[in-house]
């Protein structure tokens, strides 16, 4: 047992990276449509096809599923999971609280609320907007919703009772309730078509993955990760509290703003493309902290990796346990993540407080 533990401690990032690759290889094979080796060989055709702009018929059914549905979905699930893991770790370090998570604090709900408002209020107007612009309208709205919640959360929690965890969580609960009410109102007002897109946002699903989203997400995540990992030691300084962090030369206000913008961007984009997916942002940093300790320089990269792995596993299960039907992954993560979190809290009662 101790040997296993020693190996696990040696290179957590290596372990996570290998399991992520193995899981990707496994996930690509399983699904409603089986994938054969011959389907992979169609890869060159793919570029030909996109270059010529030819119809989809040149691809076999298997390779169509592989290249146009499954691969983007797998990659998007990894990227979304990684964003959720990273934004969860960031929120926790910003609020000095292991219970903080974009979902619990209402950031995801705020994004979904803005998306719901856009769907219902702009329902008739949307036809007038250029289809290309329409595709970007929802992600943009979701991002703005997340940003608004993040800033008001930070301001209100600090004004009500600075440094108080209870004030923060209560503000988060209020945000969640408010966003829930608005989403409920939108559901009430929506027609059938709008209702279907609304339930997509509230349940969370990766089924609509597209290569364009994968590219965009990869870009945002990579940029955010590079920007944030430069200041990981200053994130550790936040654990000392605002005053002490300023005394050792950390620009707390600037750092706060930077973190909030990135959390809103990452969590907001995740909600924008895939709806509300809960618990990944909470559990990934938690597990990492139990594994390697609370040093942010390790927690941030590992939570990113682990978040990607967790959502990949969850999405693979969600689309395979009930073939040919599939469970929305948001329901799945909440179903599995909730009880799991209880266990975590029970086990680590002494350490996480």
């Amino acid at each position, binding site marked *: 047992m101790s040997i296993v533990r020693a190996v696990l401690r040696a290179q957590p990032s290596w372990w996570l990276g290998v399991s992520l690759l193995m899981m990707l290889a496994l996930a690509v094979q399983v699904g409603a449509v089986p994938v054969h080796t011959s389907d992979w060989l169609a890869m060159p055709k793919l570029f030909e096809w996109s270059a010529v702009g030819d119809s989809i018929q040149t691809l076999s059914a298997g390779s169509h599923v592989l290249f146009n549905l499954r691969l983007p979905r797998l990659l998007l699930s990894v990227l979304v999971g990684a964003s959720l893991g990273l934004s969860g770790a960031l929120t*926790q*370090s910003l609020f*000095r*609280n*292991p219970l903080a998570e974009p979902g619990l604090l209402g950031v995801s709900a705020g994004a979904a609320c803005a998306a719901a408002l856009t769907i219902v209020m702009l329902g008739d107007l949307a036809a007038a907007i250029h289809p290309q612009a329409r595709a970007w309208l929802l992600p943009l709205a979701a991002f703005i919703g997340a940003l608004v919640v993040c800033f008001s959360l930070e301001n209100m929690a600090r004004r009500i009772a600075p440094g108080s965890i209870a004030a923060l969580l209560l503000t988060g609960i209020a945000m969640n309730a408010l966003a829930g009410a608005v989403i409920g109102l939108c559901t009430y007002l929506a027609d059938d078509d709008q209702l279907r897109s609304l339930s997509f946002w509230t349940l969370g699903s990766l089924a609509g993955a597209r290569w364009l989203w994968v590219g965009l997400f990869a870009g945002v995540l990579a940029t955010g990760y590079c920007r944030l990992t430069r200041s990981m*030691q*200053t994130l*550790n*300084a*936040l*654990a*000392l*509290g605002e*005053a*002490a962090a*300023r*005394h*050792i*030369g*950390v*620009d707390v206000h600037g750092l706060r703003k930077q973190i909030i913008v990135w959390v809103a961007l990452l969590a907001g984009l995740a909600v924008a493309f895939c709806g509300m997916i809960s618990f990944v942002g909470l559990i990934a940093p938690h597990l990492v*902290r139990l594994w390697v*300790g*609370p*040093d942010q320089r390790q927690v941030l990269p590992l939570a990113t990796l682990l978040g990607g792995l967790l959502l990949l596993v969850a999405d693979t299960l969600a689309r395979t346990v009930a073939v040919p039907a599939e469970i929305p992954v948001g329901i799945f993560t909440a179903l599995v993540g909730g009880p799991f979190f209880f266990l975590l809290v029970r086990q680590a009662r002494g*350490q996480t*407080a």
Partner: protein
Amino acid sequence: MSTELTATLLELNHVHLSHGSVREASQVPKPFTLCLSAGERLAILGPSGAGKTTLLRLMALDSNPAKGEVQFKGRAGPSWSLVELSQQRAVMPQNCQVAFGLEVKLVIALGRVARRRDPFVSEIVLHAARLARAEHLLARRCDTLSGGEYARVHLARVFAQLWDVREGLILVDEPFAALDLGLQEHILQALDAFATERQHAVVAVLHDVNHALRAFDRLVLIKESQLFADVASNQQAVPVIEALYGLALECLQATDNAFVVSPVSRRCPPA
């Protein structure tokens, strides 16, 4: 050497200690001026709520005074950036909990977080911890520490922050609030040794008059947000302290130079 010692480190020019609440014109505290030389030991004494911590925050350049100005090393307060300032002055908080239970080693190293290139950080952390008697705590998690151990870790962090600096400024807010007698001595001695070696000035908010009289050069007495007195720390200061607290004190001679003060008990007068 003597010119260095008398060089002004910190200068408070006509500052007000206002609490933010608007008072009547007659109650606006009188402005005062205070100078601190390099290497000086200054204790701030005063009743609770007198504005000691407000004064300390002004001296730490945490906040700008409502009126007047603060100069540190010949430069006006607002012109110092947080990073520059962190390499010249350190603040030891009264009681500062570390979230997430970070490792002690990491917390001490955080004292040097603002330095871009810092090749000797692990040695400095080790030496600082040794000086603060926190060496045995290095591998512990902060959430397992007792109050006294916490104080030593934060002291080590302050040492690490100003380890390779000369003529800096250390500010301490009620360092002995929850510490036992032995630990108070350790921390006082460690702070003294560290500051003497590097000619750092030390400013401390204190409750214990005897600590102030014994280990500090100068006493600044604060009452109702005003400067009550600014006196050298010797036997002549005792009547002023009596007036400050409205209390009769008696001097007990300990050795030839040292003495301790104790409130005169009314019920049971000394024999």
